[in-house]
């Protein structure tokens, strides 16, 4: 783990037990200012608990947390004033309009009403809910609710935004809209911590990710580094060839880290660079017949699957 200069979120040995069940088991975490940090892992692996601990909404059994240099347990109000939170499956007061809902939380956050009114109008404009601002939230779709939740984070003017499963249960278009908004937020310099199962989204959004497994962080780092670490390469080449023994042909080839046979005379080659030309040359030199070759960048999905291979999901959940 590379050292982060002046981290805005720092956790050391963070542990949370519910009775005999350990939800978070001694995690260490440092998130730098302006970073987009992803928490990845199956359900019940401790992501949401970690988020609640960071916000001071639940007390750790052991360990230390610093958010913006403050202890969320000792200075909960200062921390909560500067950190915005979009909970998993966000709920609003359904009988109130979007504006009324935001006005309530703005008052709780201690904003004076003229300032709050201005910020609410701006935030609703930004999440494209201005047209329906006076409609009851009960008429809102799931995607609109999530955007309203993001508007709340905007109204608060948070330095850190913690988003728990922001896109779960959204259709692809709403997901895309929400992701664009999160990108805009990140571009404004807001530090973003988000948890998700959507790996492709994490890959495109996050600077760094942490993979949770049974309350521990199994891996942490940049997406590219993780793919290299877990899969042994960032590129995957699928080769269909006959008349050669590909592993033997590619033995000692530069950049190639693994050759795995697939079915039907195909192989999968993991590499940390585009090695197609080299493979083609070697296959032809060995008098083999190369019939097909495709390349793709290895994705977080594969890291995830590989990392959790053999994991007993029921026990983790």
């Amino acid at each position, binding site marked *: 783990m590379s050292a982060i200069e002046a981290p805005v979120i720092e956790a050391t040995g963070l542990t949370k037990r519910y009775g005999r069940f350990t939800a978070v088991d001694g995690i260490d975490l440092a998130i730098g200012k302006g970073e987009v940090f992803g928490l990845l892992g199956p359900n019940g692996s401790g992501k949401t608990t970690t988020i609640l601990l960071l916000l001071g909404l639940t007390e750790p059994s052991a360990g230390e947390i610093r958010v913006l240099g403050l202890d969320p347990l000792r200075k909960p109000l200062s921390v909560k004033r500067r950190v915005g939170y979009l909970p998993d499956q966000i709920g609003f*007061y359904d009988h109130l309009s979007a504006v009324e809902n935001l006005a309530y939380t703005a008052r709780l956050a*201690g904003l004076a009403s003229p300032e709050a009114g201005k910020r609410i109008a701006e935030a609703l404009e930004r999440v494209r809910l201005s047209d329906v601002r006076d409609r009851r939230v009960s008429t809102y779709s799931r995607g609109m609710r999530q955007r309203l939740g993001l508007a709340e984070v905007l109204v*608060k003017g948070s330095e850190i935004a913690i988003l728990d499963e922001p896109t779960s249960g959204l259709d692809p278009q709403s997901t895309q809209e929400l992701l664009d908004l999160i990108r805009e937020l990140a571009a404004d310099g807001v530090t973003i911590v988000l948890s998700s199962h959507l790996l492709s989204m994490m890959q495109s959004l996050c600077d760094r990710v942490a993979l949770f497994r049974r309350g521990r962080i199994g891996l942490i780092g940049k997406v590219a580094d993780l793919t290299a670490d877990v899969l042994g390469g960032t590129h995957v080449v699928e080769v269909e060839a006959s008349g050669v023994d590909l592993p033997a042909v590619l033995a000692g080839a530069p950049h190639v880290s693994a050759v795995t046979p697939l079915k039907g005379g195909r192989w999968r080659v993991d590499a940390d660079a585009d090695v197609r030309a080299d493979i083609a040359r070697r296959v032809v030199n060995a008098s083999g017949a190369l019939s097909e070759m495709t390349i793709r960048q290895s994705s977080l999905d594969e890291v995830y699957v590989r990392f959790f291979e053999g994991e007993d999901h029921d026990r983790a959940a």
Partner: protein
Amino acid sequence: MTGRREGSPFSGLSTVALKEAADHMNSARIHLVMLLVLLTAIGSVYAAIGQIKATIGEDQFLFLRLFTTAQEPLPSFVSFLGFLIPLVAIALGFDAINGEYSRRTLSRVLSQPIYRDALLTGKFLGGLIVIAICLLTLWLLVTGLGIVLLGLPPSGEEIARELAFLFASFVYAGVWLAVAMAFSTLVKSPATSALCALTLWLVFTVFWPMLAPLVAGAIAPVDLLDPMTAVHQIAVQQGLSRISPNVLYGEATLALLNPATRSLGLLFPSQLSGALMGAPLPLSASLGLVWPQIAGMIAALIVLFTIAYVSFQRQEIRA
């Protein structure tokens, strides 16, 4: 945890209280319950006025009779209140906390810079505000009705007694609000907590008056040869029945609105020697008489609120 917490536990309190009060005022549930209270109140007072007019006599406290006179088949205004105030309070509080869980708004609200104290206390205060407004309106309505239909204004002492009665009603409603809120923190589902609170209400209004004599008979049997055992049994029975806030409220209203009430317990002829039977007690003496009842209700309110508070503070946000 050691050390002082940062900031005031009450920042955000007034925001929560006003929002809750506004929500209640707009909710169909409360409108319905209020309509029920209003109709029964007007009905009982109207009947009482008819009765008073029919049996007009020299009464120093004619106006107070508005509240206490019952005409078959309608019970009096105060007995209606004793019956319906808990219903109003339960309607206001039964889903205070578990409703936030089921709407999934709790974590969002608590991620704002407030303490849990502010949320719970604010919700309680919001309910009390609504109750206070309702009781005051009801009282003004009844008084107005009385002035118009009886054609005489209430005297100063009558108003003072009515205000004391209003305060007792307010505390009584507070007890039931605290009951409802305690259930709303202890029980996860709003429907279950409403049922729990209504069950308790039913027990205290219907079954408690039947149970108290039975239990007292078992605890303190009467020995026919020892008359003191009978006195003892009555004391036990009264003690038991006073566990019910309804009984405390009934006794308090009786002494406040019926100035001739001299005692709320057993009275021996020796204690009455020299007393003018039927002569009203001064207000201060009546207040002294009901003070234990009022104090008992306030104590119950505080205990119930503390139960709700402790259980809410220990709850995990994640339901």
